[in-house]
């Protein structure tokens, strides 16, 4: 019983990796909006770069989610 409880707590702590990811992606989006405000012609390029940057940063949060799923469904 202690095993299941500890595994559940570990799975919950693993998702905490999304906290810093959300901070980083919000920062990226804020700077993208500011850059578009300064130079409205580069709208398409900035949007593309922001989406790719967010997709790469999100990898760390997905690692955390993956670990939490593995803990829940395999153990």
């Amino acid at each position, binding site marked *: 019983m202690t095993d299941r409880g500890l595994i559940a707590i570990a799975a919950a702590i693993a998702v905490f990796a999304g906290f810093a990811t959300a901070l980083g992606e919000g920062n990226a989006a804020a700077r993208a909006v500011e850059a578009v405000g300064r130079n409205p012609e580069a709208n398409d390029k900035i949007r593309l770069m922001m989406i790719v940057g967010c997709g*790469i940063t999100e990898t760390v949060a*997905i690692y955390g989610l993956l670990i939490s799923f593995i803990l829940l469904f395999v153990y």
Partner: protein
Amino acid sequence: MLFSNLVIEIQPTLLISLAVITCLCVFFVYAGKKIEASDPLEKPKGLVLIIEFMVDTFTNFFGSILPEKLQKYLIPYFSCIAIYIFLCNTIGLIGLESPTSNLSITLALGLVTVTMTQLTALRTKGAFQYIKGLLIPPTNILGAISPLVSLSVRLFGNILSGSILTGLIYVFTGWLSSLIFGFIPIDIIGPPIMAVLHAYFDLFAGFLQTFIFVTLSSVYISMEVE
């Protein structure tokens, strides 16, 4: 005796991947015949128009990332991989299990990228410079291996977590539907709500992940040449 406990099972994702590859092969052969039969001086319409538009998009996009020497054989490879990964990611819309939610398949794709990167570096720099570049700051070996783990686990993690989340919500709506509409033996509440989530998890995330995979792969390869 060494392999007495070895269990080989045929996973469904492997069969679905083979089916996707077969369908793509048949479609490309048919489209190729149609393109050969069409007149190059007239305006294209129908299937030829779609294929020409896609080839144009891929050539422009990868032509701006890849260097001139490698474009001839890398643009077709990356376009084909992009179409294959996108189809694999979105096959959850039909109800089949997505092949890219299997770590073996994404690991194979990542291995091809890493092998191509190292071979391009070897061909550009020559054997001695290449080995020197791998060993001089000793952490450069890690920098050659880490794209493998990051590319494959990123694709695998995104698609698998999407499919687990949609599976969990289907279980919940199934229980809710059996609670409210007990006389109907199927899940009534699920599909209308899940339409939006399928559009996000399968279409948007699937497209974004293929875009990131092929962009990062081509950037890794083009960084070895300069």
